[in-house]
């Protein structure tokens, strides 16, 4: 891995980012529905008030001027002010982003772990009953919609057994005496959403892992290893698995980007204060600044995730040469 390769990749990522930013800008300005008219109608307000808001946000200026202002603000990480909340978008996004990240990260870890395990077992014992069972389970989980799974888990553990919380990230409105107590509260609230979101992706991971590993197991060098007398377990784990991980890395990177914005089903079932819900509400209210900010963050996450995946390839597969 050399510096030229890294900087070239970085440069490409930045160009992608710029294109995304521009598309982001125009996308929201061609959507039907004037956000200020909606705010004004909601509260019996006058046309003058609507004009006032429009001017406040610079929305009656021509597009090129708005675009330049938009770019300038972005450089200083100023995503502008939300129409609905009349507060800086960064402030509103910041908290929700943390909530989504903690959910997405841990759900990914669960999914990667479980998916790799199930996929490996399936491929290693292909055709046997355990393969059929494992694959069947994966397919079943894969086809379950996240919200259905969430509702089932809630009705079991929160309602019937009453052992896990119904909603939210923390118990509402109590003082947490120490940070440790706070972490415990959040962790307790995270259990069901993480299981829901994690299982929703596990299915896909299992199938890809299985397919990829099966592919690798048919390679010549595996036959050689068997001929040399290595133990079956060592062959699978030490020789085949590392090579089979490559497609998984791709899928994980792609998935991670989508998870940030796409956990809305889980967030709605568990009233988790994440970005997915925020984006949906902002969409209904035509709150463009929040939408622009959120979409930008999601895009950056996808671009960064893919960038990291590219780097990881270099370590995982020595065959790939970079010049």
């Amino acid at each position: 891995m050399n510096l030229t390769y890294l900087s070239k990749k970085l440069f490409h990522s930045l160009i992608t980012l710029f294109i995304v930013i521009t598309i982001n800008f125009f996308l929201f300005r061609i959507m039907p529905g004037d956000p200020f008219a909606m705010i004004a109608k909601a509260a019996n307000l006058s046309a003058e008030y609507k004009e006032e808001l429009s001017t406040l946000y610079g929305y009656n200026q021509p597009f090129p001027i708005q675009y330049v202002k938009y770019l300038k603000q972005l450089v200083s990480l100023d995503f502008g002010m939300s129409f609905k909340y009349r507060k800086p978008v960064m402030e509103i996004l910041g908290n929700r982003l943390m909530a989504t990240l903690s959910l997405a990260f841990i759900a990914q870890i669960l999914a990667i772990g479980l998916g790799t395990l199930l996929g490996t077992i399936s491929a290693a014992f292909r055709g046997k009953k355990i393969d059929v069972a494992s694959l069947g389970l994966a397919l079943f989980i894969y086809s379950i919609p996240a919200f259905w799974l969430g509702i089932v888990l809630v009705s079991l553990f929160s309602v019937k057994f009453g052992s896990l919380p119904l909603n939210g990230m923390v118990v509402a409105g109590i003082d947490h005496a120490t940070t440790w107590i706070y972490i415990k509260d959040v962790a307790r609230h995270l259990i069901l959403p993480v299981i829901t979101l994690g299982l929703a992706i596990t299915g896909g991971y299992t199938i890809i892992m299985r397919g990829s590993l099966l592919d690798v197991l048919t390679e010549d060098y595996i036959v050689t290893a068997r001929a040399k007398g290595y133990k079956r377990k060592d062959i699978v784990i030490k020789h085949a698995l590392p090579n089979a991980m490559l497609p998984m890395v791709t899928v994980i990177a792609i998935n991670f980007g989508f998870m940030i914005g796409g956990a809305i089903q889980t967030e709605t079932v568990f009233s988790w204060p994440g970005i997915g819900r925020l984006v949906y509400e902002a969409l209904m209210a035509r709150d463009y600044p929040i939408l622009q900010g959120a979409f930008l963050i999601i895009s950056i996450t996808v671009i960064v995730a893919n960038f990291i995946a590219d780097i990881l390839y270099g370590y995982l597969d020595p065959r790939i040469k970079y010049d």
Partner: protein
Amino acid sequence: MKKKLCLLLAIMLLIALPLSACGGGEVEEPAEGEEPAEGEENEEPVVLRVGIIQEADSTSPLIATMTAADRMFNLMYDDLIEYDDNYKPVGGLAEDWSVSDDGLVWTFNLKEGIKWFDGEDFNADDVVWTYNTMINGEFPQSPQMEGVVETVKVDEYTVEVHTEAPKADMEAIRTNILPEHIYGEKTEDELHTFSEDNPVGTGAFELVEWEQGQFLRFKANPNYFKGAPNIDEIVYVLFANTDTLFQALQNGEVDAVAELSYSQVEQAEGLDGIEVIQPDGMNFTELGFNCWEAPESKGNPLMLDHRIRVAIDYALDKQQIVDIALNGYGKPGTSLIPPAVGDWHLEVDEDYGYNPEKAIEILEDAGYTDADGDGIREAEDGSKLDFRFAVITSYGEAYVKAAGIIQKNLQDIGINVTINTMDGGAQSELIYEQDFDTDMYLWGWGAELDPSMKLSVMTTEQVGKRSDCFWSNEEYDQLFEKQINQVDREERIETVHKMQQIILEEAPYSILYYRNIVEAYRTDKFEGWTRVPEGSGSAVTQVNKSTILNIRPK
């Protein structure tokens, strides 16, 4: 290789845990929440928990436009005049008030000794600043100040409000009085973007914590001028779906819900320890028509014939719409001002209602017949009674179900409608930005206790602004100007009734229903839920402070 992966996973886990600790924003350094010292016993604070679905948008009354914010302001602020449990005006921050003989000068004597949350004294400066800001600027409350010229400080605890003509709805003004010592220095532009994290008010409760998307937390104000509340805290817990909200009510995690979804009401009524109430709805939902007479209107010109609109009004089986779209939780619509508002509502004659034969008679008499036998009537010039119907699907199922019934009802009298589904923003754009490119649509309004605001929607002046049907009628406009100055309540009621009669006869709207907002609360831990108005009103979300001041632990 495996070791590296493990290391990577471990690092991610380590990062994720503290991240989730940061998530959710600042937790106050717990001055009050600390473990009690050895030997001391801190009493558990008495906390009322209410489950809500809609979150407020801003803590500043000068910015917030959502009705969910009104809940917040009711806790934190006061007005000069407020409502008692029978909707009669009583003094809030004002001790008493009087109006001059010519009706142009109102004098308010303010209560003395009231303090803001931060210890400053409340006095005339606050009222003067608040009212004049709304009169001179463009804020959500400014339409209420219509006709008010200025507010003048007479002395420390007396203000005069000057109007250009006698103002009939002066006692209905609800703006929330804001602290001049915090807002006074700001320019109008700053006021459009400034909001406090912990607003300073005079009210019964202070906002101490707002975790966006999660909850709002209020602590009682022990120095509240009407008497300290009987509980320590109120927490509004935000739920993203109604199922877990209902569940939380059942297992006691919340003590009340602001609104039950209709499918839950029957189940809730069967539960012990939960009280379900159905206050009359202070709202109406209408089938609106494109009444715009301007040449640029993209509406079907046939819709401008009021006889067609009246016929449609008679053709709709509104009771069926209530039964199916609202599961029966509502009343069929009649006149513009909902019955829940009181005397202002116009009671209709017995012969008003679902009457498809009458509808057909009206159409036939007006010359709309089905000459070619295809089931759709035509005008004498051959143009078909075929209309476009915009239906918002993002508000929930009620509109969609209602639209289906409306389509069927109209088919029965020979009118064809084509349904176009969209969300609220798109319909707004269709009407206001695209020259009203539809013929019919569904929408709804919340109603205030004073009818002026709703009546104003139908005036010519509001075409293109507050009005969504763009209807214009000179007689109606004249009556509107008349009632706004009629200080005699009986006379004003008569004028308001005449105005609603015109609306029934011209039908710019066909009022479909007034829907009920079903509330529910637990009876085990708290008592003192007070219905406003007495006996038939709401207890959880209300126009005055009865419940929040009466509620106490059992």
